[in-house]
C-alpha cells in the first residue's frame, strides 16, 4: 500500500514551527535580559555624573589639569566590560542559533523531494506535446472549459492574452445557452421557451420533456400568483397543455389539481412541492442536457473528464516507469502503440467498446476487426487467418467448422 506522502512533510513543518517558536522565546528573552542590564549601566553612569550638568562648567572642570577622582571605580568598569561582553555574545548567538535552524528548514525540502514525484521524464517525446501547432488547441480546450464553468470573462481574457486565433464556434453556441440559463436562474422562462420552440422538432425526436416542463412551470407561476390569475391560468393550460396529453397525462392531471387551492395558496397542500426551487433546478438540468444533446456536445466537460482520467492514470504510469528498464520506457510514449499497462478508469468512462482478441491478445482495430464465426463466437481477423488450415477454420471454443469466408465482420 502506498504511504501517505503528506504525513512526513507535515511533521517536518511542525518541527520547524516548533523550533522557531522556541528560538523566538529564548532569543527575545535573552535580548530583553541584556537590555535590562544595559539600562542598569546607563543609570549607573548617569548617577556617577556630577550634579551640575552645565556643560560649560563641566568642560572647564575637565580641561583643568587637575582631574577629579575617576567617576567609576575599576570594579564598576570591569562590570561594564562584562556586561558589554555579554551583549556581544548574546547578540552573536541570535544569528548563530538562527543559522542552526536552517538544517530543519532544508529538511522540509528534502522530505518533499523524497516523497513526491519530481519529474515526468518518461513522457518526453521527440516532438514536444506542447508546441506551436498544438498550443492553440490546448488553449481552445481551456477556453471551452471556462465557458462551461460559467467563466465567460476569463475565457475572453484568455483569447486576448494568448494572441491566438482560437476557434470560437463553441463559445458562441455556449454564450447563447449560457444566457438562457442565466435567465432561468432569474425566473425568466421566455428565452428558454423561445429556444424550445426553435428546436421543437429535434426535441420531439429525442422525446424530451423540456417543453412540457417549461409550460408546467409557467402555469404554476400563474397559479401561485393568486386567485386573480384563475382565468389566465386556465387559458394557459388550455392553450399549451394539449399537445402533451399523450405523454404527460398524469402529470397534467396532477398540476391541474392545484387550481383548487388557488385562493388559499398552495402551501401545506399536496401541491406545495410544485413551488420549490428544485423544480427550477430540475428544469435547468433538463435544458442543459437537451441543449448539449442537440448541439452534439458532451454533458460533462471533456477537459474535466480527461484530467480526472489523467489523475488516475499518471500514478500508475509513474509506478510502471520505475519497474521498466530504459529501452522499454522510451517506447512507452510513442504513437501507434499501446500503454504497457491497463488503467482502470471506472465504468463511467467507458465510451466505446473494446474487443480484445483472446487468441492474439490484441485490441481490434480498423484493419484487424472482430469476426463472428457461424457458431457465434468472436475472434479477430488476424486470429481467423492464423486458424485457417486448408480452407477450413475450426472454432477454438466449440467443435463447429466453417470455411474462412463464412465468418462475418461485426461492429460493436
Amino acid at each position, binding site marked *: 500500500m502506498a504511504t501517505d506522502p503528506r504525513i512526513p512533510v507535515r511533521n517536518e513543518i511542525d518541527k520547524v514551527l516548533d523550533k522557531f517558536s522556541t528560538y523566538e522565546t529564548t532569543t527575545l528573552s535573552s535580548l530583553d535580559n*541584556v537590555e535590562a542590564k544595559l539600562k542598569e549601566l546607563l543609570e549607573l553612569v548617569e548617577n556617577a555624573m556630577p550634579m551640575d550638568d552645565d556643560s560649560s562648567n563641566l568642560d572647564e572642570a575637565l580641561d583643568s589639569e587637575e582631574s577629579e577622582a575617576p567617576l567609576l571605580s575599576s570594579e564598576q568598569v570591569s562590570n561594564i566590560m562584562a556586561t558589554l561582553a555579554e551583549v556581544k555574545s548574546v547578540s552573536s548567538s541570535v544569528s548563530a542559533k538562527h543559522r542552526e535552524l536552517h538544517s530543519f528548514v532544508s529538511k522540509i525540502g528534502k522530505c518533499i523531494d523524497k516523497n513526491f514525484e*519530481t519529474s515526468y521524464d518518461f513522457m518526453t517525446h521527440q516532438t514536444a506535446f506542447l508546441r506551436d501547432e498544438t498550443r492553440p*488547441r490546448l488553449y481552445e480546450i481551456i477556453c471551452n472549459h471556462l465557458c462551461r464553468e460559467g467563466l465567460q470573462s476569463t475565457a475572453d481574457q484568455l483569447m486576448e492574452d494568448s494572441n491566438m486565433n482560437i476557434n470560437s464556434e463553441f463559445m458562441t453556441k455556449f454564450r447563447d445557452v449560457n444566457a438562457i440559463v442565466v435567465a432561468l436562474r432569474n425566473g425568466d422562462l421566455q428565452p428558454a421557451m423561445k429556444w424550445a420552440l426553435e428546436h421543437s422538432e429535434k426535441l420531439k425526436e429525442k422525446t424530451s420533456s423540456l417543453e412540457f416542463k417549461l409550460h408546467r412551470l409557467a402555469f404554476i407561476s400563474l397559479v401561485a400568483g393568486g386567485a386573480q390569475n384563475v382565468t389566465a391560468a386556465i387559458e394557459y393550460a388550455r392553450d399549451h397543455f394539449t399537445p402533451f396529453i399523450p405523454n404527460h397525462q398524469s402529470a397534467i392531471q396532477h398540476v391541474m389539481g392545484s387550481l383548487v387551492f388557488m385562493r388559499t395558496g398552495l402551501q401545506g397542500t399536496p401541491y406545495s412541492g410544485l413551488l420549490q426551487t428544485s423544480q427550477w433546478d430540475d428544469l435547468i438540468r433538463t435544458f442543459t442536457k437537451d441543449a448539449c444533446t442537440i448541439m452534439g456536445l458532451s454533458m460533462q466537460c471533456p477537459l474535466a473528464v480527461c484530467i480526472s482520467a489523467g489523475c488516475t492514470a499518471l500514478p500508475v504510469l509513474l509506478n510502471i516507469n520505475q519497474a521498466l528498464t530504459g529501452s522499454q520506457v522510451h517506447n512507452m510514449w510513442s504513437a501507434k502503440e499501446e500503454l504497457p499497462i491497463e488503467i482502470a478508469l471506472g465504468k463511467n468512462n467507458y465510451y466505446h467498446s473494446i474487443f480484445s482478441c483472446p487468441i492474439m491478445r490484441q485490441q481490434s482495430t480498423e484493419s484487424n476487426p472482430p469476426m463472428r464465426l457461424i457458431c457465434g463466437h468472436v475472434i479477430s481477423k488476424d486470429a481467423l487467418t492464423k486458424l485457417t488450415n486448408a480452407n477450413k477454420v475450426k472454432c477454438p471454443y466449440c467443435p463447429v467448422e466453417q470455411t474462412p469466408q463464412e465468418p462475418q465482420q461485426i461492429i460493436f
Partner: protein
Amino acid sequence: MDGFVPVSENLSMMGSHNIFGTNSQISENDTSSQHTAEVDGSSQINRCMAALEHSTIKVPYEVLNRKFRTAQKVLEREVSAVAACTSEMQAALSGSPMPRPQQLTQMIRGVMSQVSSLKRKAREAVAGEVECARAVRRRIEHLDQAGKGSAAARAAWESTRIDRLITDFLLREGCYRTAKKLVELRNIKSLTNLGLFENAYEVEQSLERRDVSKCLAWCHENKTKLKKLNSSLEFNIRIQEFIDMIKRNERMSAVWHARKYFSAQDCKQLPSIPQCMALLAFPADTKIPEYQVLLSDSRWQDLIQQFRDENLRLYHLSLQATFTVVVQAGLSALKTPQCYKSNKESFNPDCPVCVPTLNSLAKELPYAHCSQSRLVCFLSGETMNENNLPLMLPNGYVYGSNALEAQAAANNGEVFCPRSETKFQLSDAQKVFVM
C-alpha cells in the same frame, strides 16, 4: 456572471448519457468488499498525491527558504552592528583617558539602540518565516481534504484541482491576466503561485517592448543562484543589445558595448562572440542566412522563453507544466481505436477523445491498453454482458439486447440501427459470444 451549471459537479452521480435522451443506470462493481475498497481508495489517493502535488508544496517551501536566507543576512548585519559599537565602547573604556560621562551615556545608548534594533529585526524575521512555514502547511492541509467528506465536497476538491492545474499552466505560458482572473473568481489565491509569477510577468512584458532594464535588474537580484545554474541569460541580453545597436547602425556604440561586456565571459560563451562581432562587417539587411538569423526579431521571443525557463529553475520547478502531463496521461488512458475510425461512425459525444480538438491532440499518443474485452451498447451506453446480451443485426452491427428489445416492444418487433440507418426485425438478430 455565474450562469451555466457546472455539469462536472454531477460527475460521480451521472450514468452514461445516450442519444435518445434517457439515462441508464450503471451498477457498481460490488464484488470488492467495503474494506478493500477503502484501503484501495486511500492508497489511490496517496499515489495521486505523490504523483501530482510536488510543486504545490515545493513552491511555498522555496519561498520559505528564500525568506530564511534573507533573514539570516539581516540578522548577521544587525549582530555585527551591535558588535561594532560594543567593541568601540570596550576600547574606549580600556584606553586612556577615561571617556567623559556624556560620552559613556552616549555609547551606552548607542549599544542599547542597536540591541533594540536587533530585537525588532529578529522578531520581524521570525514572524515572516513562521508565516511562510504556515503557508506551506496550509497547502498540505488543503491536500488533506482530498477524498474526504460528502460527494459534493469531493467533487469540489477535484474541481479546485482542475483550476489549480490550469492556473499553473497559464502562468507558465505568460497568460498572467487570465490566471489572475481565474484565481480571483474561484478564490484560490492561497493555493496558487500567482505572486511568484507577477514579477516574472512584468519582466516578460518589458522584454516584449524590447526593454531590457527590468530583466537585467532581475538578473542582478538573483545573481548568485543564476551563477550556480550556469545561466547565460544576462550574456544573451548583452548580445541582443549589441545586435540591436548594429540594427540601428550605431556600430561604434556596439563596439564599446562589446568591449565592456564581452570580455568577462567564461569560455562556454565564447563561440558565439566571434559570430556576433563579424556582424559588424555586414549591413543590417544582409541576405546571408547565418547573419539573418542573428538579426531576426525572433531572438526576442527566445530571450523571453529563456527568461521563463530560468525563472522556473530558480524555484526548482519542472519545465513541464503538470497540466500538460496530466492531459496527455488522460487522453492516452481514454484513447481507443474506435475514436479514430475513418468513417467516424463510433463517434460518442461524451468521449473526450472523440471531441475534435482533443482528437487531433491525442493522435500522437499511445492507445489505452485493454487486456479483456469490454463491450458498450452504442444505443444505451450500458455494458453488454450476461445481463445485456450482445446481439448482431444482419448487417454486422452489434447492440445490447436490452435496448433492442425495448425498441422492438414499442415498434412491433422492429428495430432501428442508427449507424447504418436501416430497420430490421428483432427476430433476425443473432447472438454473439465474446470470451
